[in-house]
């Protein structure tokens, strides 16, 4: 819970700075577009970095490779069914609650 709180706090700090920049932009007319471009580039880099680090962690765990030949098919079928039905339920709920494809409430 403390970890979750830490992650949310970091995001809130970012949000507050973003709101501050917006207000400054409206007040002074200063263009902060360079920051948006930088943010996009940093996020793409961090995605690649995170996925690589995760891959190294998975690859370094011998347990995965030793069990793959026997159990992977069971794991795959369960995972695909679980993800598929989970996706379907969320899709039905989104339609029932009338959110559009991009997650915006359609009737507002």
């Amino acid at each position, binding site marked *: 819970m403390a970890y979750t709180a830490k992650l949310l706090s970091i995001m809130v700090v970012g949000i507050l700075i973003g709101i501050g920049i917006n207000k400054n932009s409206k007040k002074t007319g200063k263009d902060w577009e360079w920051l948006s471009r930088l943010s996009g580039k940093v996020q793409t880099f961090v995605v690649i970095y995170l996925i690589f680090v995760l891959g190294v962690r998975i690859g370094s765990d011998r347990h995965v490779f030793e069990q793959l030949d026997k159990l992977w098919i069971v794991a795959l079928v369960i995972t695909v069914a679980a993800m598929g039905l989970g996706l379907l339920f969320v899709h039905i709920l989104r339609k029932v609650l009338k959110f559009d494809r991009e997650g915006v*409430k359609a009737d507002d």
Partner: protein
Amino acid sequence: MTKKILFTVALGILCGRFATEHLALFQWIVDNNGLLIDLGLYALLFFVGLDMGRNETVFSDMKKAGWRILLFPFASMLGTLLGAALVSIFFPYKVNECMAIAAGFGWYSLAPVLLAEYSSIISAICFLANVMRELLAFIFIPIVAKRVGYIETTSLAGAAAMDTCLAVTIRSTHERIVIYAIACGMITGTLVPVIIPILVSF
């Protein structure tokens, strides 16, 4: 993005499997994996927050969504458990065992540990299934975002929705989906250590 992700995951796995014994750098990455992931997440969440703060429509979207945000993680969990229960007929494992395997919701570092004392085989399948869930989520999040819908992407990742998969979700959807991803990650993640012990107690 999907190609980049697949290439990066494959490269990371190969480096982890074959390079850790020969190159100190990769062993260091393995030893400090938690810290490295945390640092990446901190940077990512800060910049995501910055974009959210700058995008004024995000807040009005969140306000519109309201309490409904909380329903999506439960729909995802229900579907996940039902899906696992349905395919249990194909395997020599009990319904509750297959459900417990899926109830890791992608949290492969915790879920197999919770099942370790119950059965080493179920624990091993759980590990593989939840690693696969995270990897499949990486692959399918951009596809689902494009062809099905943005909110649905959070269901694929499950407990990893606000963790490693958050990055892919943001790049494939919109900043407003972060709140759905965080709700999904928080709720499913919190319930993993609750649901698994209950399922194997039968």
